[in-house]
């Protein structure tokens, strides 16, 4: 589902990623770990085509991202739900509208999306805050809005960048349950985290990054 072969990414001549090769199977759940600055976010950004590789090959859900035309990028991204580390919520819109946006962008009309939005907000435990604006929510609650927005479109691939960074242990477990539920429905899930508790007993593969390379 996600294939990287010898991928390199440079920022201002500095290697952010250095010869990454990894294969994530369809329906697999994996973890990406490593210290701050090791390249986790950069790797995820390559996968949803927010950044372009400087060398190497990358294929996501059958799309060759090196040759992907700009007009096709939206359609790739609809298949890749992302839980952004910095949330990227629209502050003038309610929680409900933020979550619904994923569906609106895909042309799913309001009357069809209403129920799905409520169900997804329930899944992340935020149904009671549907009409609040994000600024009025705690960090953990905002995190859950982002997760709801990422999973509502049933994407083939779900990427999460430090999704439990703002959460206490209990809430983190609940959030992991959401990811497991999405994974159980068949999505390929990739979670970047430096919280070893998340993957210790998961039985999932863990890729450890260090200075832009995978450590064996």
């Amino acid at each position, binding site marked *: 589902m996600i294939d990287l072969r010898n991928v390199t990414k440079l920022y201002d001549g500095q290697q952010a990623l250095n010869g990454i090769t990894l294969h994530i199977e369809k329906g697999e759940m994996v973890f990406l770990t490593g210290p701050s600055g090791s390249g986790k976010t950069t790797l995820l950004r390559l996968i*949803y085509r*927010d950044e372009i590789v400087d060398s190497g090959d990358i294929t996501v859900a059958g799309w060759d991202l090196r040759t992907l035309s700009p*007009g096709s*990028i*939206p*359609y*790739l*991204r*609809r298949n890749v739900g*992302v839980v*952004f580390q910095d949330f*990227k*919520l*629209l502050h*003038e819109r309610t929680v409900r509208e933020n979550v619904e*946006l*994923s569906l*609106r*962008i*895909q*042309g799913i*009309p*309001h009357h069809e999306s209403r129920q799905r939005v409520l169900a997804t907000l329930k899944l992340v435990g935020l149904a009671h805050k549907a009409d609040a604006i994000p600024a009025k929510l705690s960090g953990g609650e905002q995190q859950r809005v982002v997760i709801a*927005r990422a999973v509502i479109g049933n994407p083939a691939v779900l990427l999460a960048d430090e999704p439990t960074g703002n959460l206490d242990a209990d809430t983190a477990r609940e959030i992991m349950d959401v990811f497991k539920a999405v994974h159980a429905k068949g999505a390929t899930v990739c979670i970047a985290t430096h919280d070893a508790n998340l993957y210790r007993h998961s039985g999932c593969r863990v890729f450890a990054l260090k200075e832009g390379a995978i450590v064996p």
Partner: protein
Amino acid sequence: MMEIRFHINTAASNIARNKGINLLTIFSITVGLFLIAVTAITLSTLKSAVREWTRGFGVVVYLKDNADQATVKSLKSRIEREAGVKEARFVPRSAAMASLKTVLGEDILEGLDENPLPDSIEITLTEDRLNAEFVRETARRVKTYPGVEDVQFGEQWVGALFGVARHFTLAGTAVGFALTIGILFILSNTIKILFYRRTNEIDILKLLGATRWFIRIPFMAEGIFFGLSSGLLASMLLQASLAWMSSGNAIPFVMPVTPFAISILLVLFGGILGLAGSTIAVGRIRL
């Protein structure tokens, strides 16, 4: 399919969020559209005045003294076959004298024991052919026909009037064109500013998989809204001005179309400019 209502909601909330710049834009476009309408009305008033004045300028064909009836008859029918001739009327010298007497008064002409006026044919041209060039051309041709002594027409007047009218038409068209360009410029600039105010939001939409058109459509809706509302305001302003001016007995304006049609046209033209201006704006923005 994209959902229209969603885009309109987005556009509406953007309009509400940027009241200052929006009011300024609508105000400027309103004034521009109003001036375009005023220019059009002025031009059509001027044109119809010129047409009215020149209607009086017939072409008079003076006949030779020795022209016999057969010559006159064939000349008259020949003139009637000329392009642009609406009517050719034979005026015998006695009738010419009689009308001269009613104009000048019996006394002045009393001393004349002989009628010095020639027979003539008065030509009326159809209105659509009333331009200086055509009148001059026709006069020159008719002058070569047998039995014709001379042809007269208000050459200087016709030429000057049409020259003036042509210059005004040109100037008016240029003004209208400049105003249109100005409106487009204001519109596309405003849309661009509104766009840049929302780059953060747009970046997020793109990351969520929004197509270019999904992002563009609300801005185009805003442009159309600006155009339509300015058109509406301009037509209200115009109707108010027309009502105010006709309340005194000022200039009798000649509308190019009915006042109602002008209102419709203003709103329509505003909407088209709104669409055009915002299309220019979103086309130039890199997405």
